[in-house]
């Protein structure tokens, strides 16, 4: 192996790949071989580095220079200036106000982050077992297998305070202990990689960016509970994650880290990958188990819990990807170290997918107990587009929305739950004041109606009823008492549904009613959507003082309802308007506004129709 003077780490996470990272990588290979530098520079394709918004990003060592928004055209300059002459390219560095930030570790996005699960993500080549081992990989497994009993390993996890990162936050050691105590010949461990929450991509990034870590975590679990076989259940939408895990399993098998008598002990282990087929409910552990068994992914009543009767009726532990990712570090650095981070009840760190109307979207890992303000404004860089912060949605379709008054709440399992939100898998969607909360609630309800497996009636019928009411409200047909009915239905569905999907599905509606009741009331009583999102509850109006009479809107109107002339300016015929928004898009002087509420012409027209119908009857 030759020693190379420069390591070029190109982020090949999903965000950067979509932004064109692979083309840049190819260009580097081409330019370097053209200039005969391939022996001096090492190109490494890493997992997600986190700041997806800056993508494609790269870090160049030994200096640790961080470049953002690189294009294939920049490659020649980087090679000529930075690699050959040793002069880093200033214009590709991050500009923070008037400061140029050269070093990777000085980027503000990273300042409040603590990387445990993500430690290697974006730092090593995920397809190389050697690189994982070089960062201390498989050290934990070696130590545990040769020096600890399964009970001692469970005690370490207990002391660390690790709780399930999949959403509900069940203490990991308790799950393990239950399976450990069962006297059965066969037990299983399953890694739940069915990351179905919209707006969440941390499990994907972990599986793609550091697959060996997840595999090692799974083996630590398997040894502790006495399982000899494991399954990775990964959703079909993540082909790269599936490929990398399969590859990691093969690599581990080749060097004897998997198979029989691992590390010369009696511990034998085999792992295999099963792929999902697009069903959100399969993130629920019983549904997931049925899916691996080749059945419809319907949940079944608990008890019996998977710890008693799981996969093929055998005791089974189902752990989330991120939970497993924490384990190797806990065993290497110790339970005490891990439990110093976080709050009283929630220890360690949590990975979040930070998205929405903020400057720095991406993948972040912060200690439990970090406030939402720190996460959104310090790590996320604050709101984009000059709009005000309105709400943050946590926990996907099972979670809820919090408001500006909750910004200083420390994020942990209990505080979020008490406020009607949920940790969930870690999707954080920040919304500005242009978003309609009734519409957001409807979006989540639509999702849950679609994904309900239909087995139990409260979820199948109740959610559909809730959706119908929300749909009516956003169409201007809301009635007095709708809010109360939504609350009654929501509480009932949550109480009597069979599985976690139904039990948590009403959360987005209930939490938005709790914090944005006035918006619901405006939709129902005033028939107005003040954020001008719900199509039936606003209208377009041409401001004649700004209109230049160019007739472009009239020509582009699919309903032919805009009339006027250069002298009289233009007017929209409200009754025929279909609210497509074309006129607003094409107006060269931005003279067309959205006005909350239904136009009086439309109301009058509807009333006249109703009267005529009554007469005819």
């Amino acid at each position: 192996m030759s020693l190379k003077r420069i390591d070029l780490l190109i982020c090949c996470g999903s965000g950067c790949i979509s932004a064109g990272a692979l083309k840049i990588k190819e260009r580097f290979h081409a330019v370097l071989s053209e200039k005969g530098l391939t022996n001096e520079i090492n190109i490494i394709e890493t997992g997600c580095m986190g700041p997806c918004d800056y993508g494609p990003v790269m870090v160049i060592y030994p200096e640790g220079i961080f470049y953002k928004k690189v294009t294939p055209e920049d490659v020649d300059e980087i090679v000529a200036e930075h690699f050959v002459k040793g002069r880093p390219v200033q214009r590709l560095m991050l500009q923070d106000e008037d400061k140029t930030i050269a070093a990777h570790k000085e980027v503000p996005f990273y300042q409040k982050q603590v990387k445990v699960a993500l430690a290697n993500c974006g730092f090593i080549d995920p397809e190389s077992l050697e690189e994982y081992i070089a960062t201390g990989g498989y050290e934990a497994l070696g130590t545990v297998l040769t020096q600890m009993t399964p009970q001692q390993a469970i005690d370490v996890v207990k002391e660390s305070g690790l709780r399930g990162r999949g959403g509900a936050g069940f203490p990991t050691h308790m799950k393990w202990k239950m399976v450990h105590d069962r006297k059965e010949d066969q037990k299983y461990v399953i890694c739940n990689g069915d990351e179905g929450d919209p707006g969440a991509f941390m499990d994907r990034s972990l599986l793609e960016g550091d697959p060996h870590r997840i595999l090692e975590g799974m083996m630590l679990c398997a040894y502790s509970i006495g399982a000899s076989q494991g399954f990775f259940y990964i959703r079909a939408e993540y082909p790269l994650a599936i490929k990398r895990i399969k590859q990691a399993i093969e690599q581990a098998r080749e060097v004897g880290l998997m198979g029989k008598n691992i590390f010369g002990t009696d511990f034998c282990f085999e792992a295999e990958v099963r792929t999902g087929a697009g069903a959100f409910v399969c993130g629920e552990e019983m549904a997931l188990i049925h899916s691996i068994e080749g059945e419809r992914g319907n949940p079944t009543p608990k008890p019996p819990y998977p710890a008693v009767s799981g996969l093929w009726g055998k005791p089974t532990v189902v752990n989330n990807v991120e939970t497993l990712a924490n384990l190797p570090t806990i065993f290497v650095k110790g339970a005490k170290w891990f439990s110093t981070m976080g709050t009283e009840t929630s220890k360690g760190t949590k990975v979040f997918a930070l998205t929405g109307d903020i400057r720095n979207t991406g993948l972040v890992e912060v200690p439990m107990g970090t406030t939402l303000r720190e996460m959104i404004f310090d790590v996320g860089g604050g709101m984009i587009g000059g709009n005000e912060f309105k709400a943050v949605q946590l926990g996907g379709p099972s979670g809820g929305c919090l408001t500006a008054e909750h910004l200083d709440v420390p994020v942990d399992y209990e505080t979020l739950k008490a406020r009607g939100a949920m940790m969930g898998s870690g999707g954080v969607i920040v919304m500005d004041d242009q978003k309609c909360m009734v519409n957001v609630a409807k979006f989540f309800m639509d999702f849950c109606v679609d994904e309900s497996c239909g087995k139990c009636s409260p979820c199948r019928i109740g959610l559909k009823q809730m959706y119908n009411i929300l749909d009516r409200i956003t169409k201007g047909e809301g009635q007095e008492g709708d809010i109360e009915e939504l609350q009654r239905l929501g509480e009932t569905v949550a109480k009597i549904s069979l599985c976690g999907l139904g039990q948590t599905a009403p959360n987005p509606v209930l939490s938005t009613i709790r914090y944005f009741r006035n918006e619901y009331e405006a939709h129902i009583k005033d028939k107005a959507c003040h954020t001008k999102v719900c199509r039936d509850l606003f209208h377009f109006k041409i401001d004649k003082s700004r209109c230049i009479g160019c007739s472009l809107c009239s020509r582009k109107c699919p309903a032919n309802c805009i009339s006027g002339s250069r002298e009289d300016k233009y007017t929209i015929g409200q009754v025929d308007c279909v609210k497509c928004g074309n006129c607003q898009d094409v107006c060269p002087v931005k003279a067309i506004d959205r006005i909350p509420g239904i136009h009086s012409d439309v109301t009058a027209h509807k009333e006249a129709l109703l009267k005529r119908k009554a007469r005819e009857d």
Partner: protein
Amino acid sequence: MNPISQQDNLLYDKLRAVIAERKNLRNPLIEILRNAQEIFGYLPIEVQEFIAQEMNIPASKIYGVVTFYNFFSMKPRGKYTLNICMGTACFVKGAPRLLQMISDELGVEVGETTSDGRFTVSAVRCVGACSLAPVFVIGEDTFGRIETRDKINEILKKYD
């Protein structure tokens, strides 16, 4: 029903080989269905019945599994599947509008295939590229931050 062509026979032979290879795995049904969909492009009733016979399990069970998972389709698909991400991040960043523009452009609604058989438009739940919202995916190519009709047109043109 169309008479089974030579081409179909070849496909069924391929499927038979896949089933024979995987039959002895534990509960391989979903994996076999995935392979079958790769071979045929979709899972019509005839293919489901064929699998039922080869695996000796009731066709009703296979139908139950096929209709449960979004990934499986019983209708033929276009040459390319255009998936519009309807995850939360894309939703708040304007995915409904993107969907409208794409379906206007292609003249089909979600779940339909264009008459030239080029695209099947479908909506998916989060492709995990939230920072590029709103996003759509054609095959394995992801397109992010698409805000105008012209840009959509430009991209669609590349796929014949």
